[in-house]
């Protein structure tokens, strides 16, 4: 759904439910999310992402690497190196999963629809799996 549509719909809801009042509760509630409303994440066909999405991936990798559980995934000695290693691992895994998803979905669109469903089965709390049903995300 596009941003303009959402904003128009919020204004419409205000016109329906908050008639007669100057305050626009639905519109102000919508604008209270994030930086003045909805954020767009654009993904291309070959897994390229826009600047905002790239920043979000780096941010999520950084936050995930700072968690205590993430310290065990990087096999290095010092704590600083461990955090950096975990960050790189998370960032790479996010990007690889996104690229695989974009390309393989396009390939599935051009190929057999039944094979698509088998390939993207939900397993073990992680949506993305490869041919051997192993999760692509860490």
């Amino acid at each position, binding site marked *: 759904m596009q941003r303009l549509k959402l904003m128009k719909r919020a204004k419409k809801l205000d016109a*329906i439910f908050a008639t007669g009042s100057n305050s626009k509760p*639905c519109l102000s509630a919508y604008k209270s999310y994030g930086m003045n409303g909805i*954020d767009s994440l654009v993904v*291309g066909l*070959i897994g390229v992402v826009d600047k905002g999405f790239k920043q979000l991936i780096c941010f999520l990798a950084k*936050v995930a690497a700072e968690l205590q559980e993430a310290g065990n995934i990087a096999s290095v000695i010092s704590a600083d190196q461990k955090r950096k290693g975990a960050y790189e691992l998370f960032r790479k895994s996010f990007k690889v*999963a996104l690229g695989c998803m974009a390309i393989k979905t396009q390939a599935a*669109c051009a190929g057999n629809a039944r094979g698509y469903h088998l390939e993207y089965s939900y397993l073990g709390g992680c949506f993305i799996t490869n041919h051997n049903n192993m999760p692509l995300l860490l």
Partner: protein
Amino acid sequence: MLDAYGIVVKNAMLINGKYHRMHASIQSLITDMFKKANIWAIREPQNMFLGLVPACILKQYCDQHSVKECIIPYIMTYDHPHRERSGRVVLQRRIFEVKTMRVDSRMNKYNPRNPNRRPVEERFAEIEAHETS
């Protein structure tokens, strides 16, 4: 088999408009990413106004059973950390929409002759222009 500029992918045929499944798959993937970062995220929340609008309006909004009138974003996060200019980290709610691109007849999305402007940036600029118009 992929080439450097994605020509093979560009020329791939899409049958019966199944590309919309890419949307759902990528939404689930992004939700998984948020979960890895321990950020609470939900896909297609039914009531994004909970706790933000007065109770009487919220009740009317919930009582209406028309999906057409509801606002359902793709992904909502509740405790998204955001660093302000002062350096203070605050938790804020955010909503996201996923925009994907399909192979179009204009053949200008993946044009290797114009490497300075990537197709996703072009698409983002289109979205921004549409919003401000």
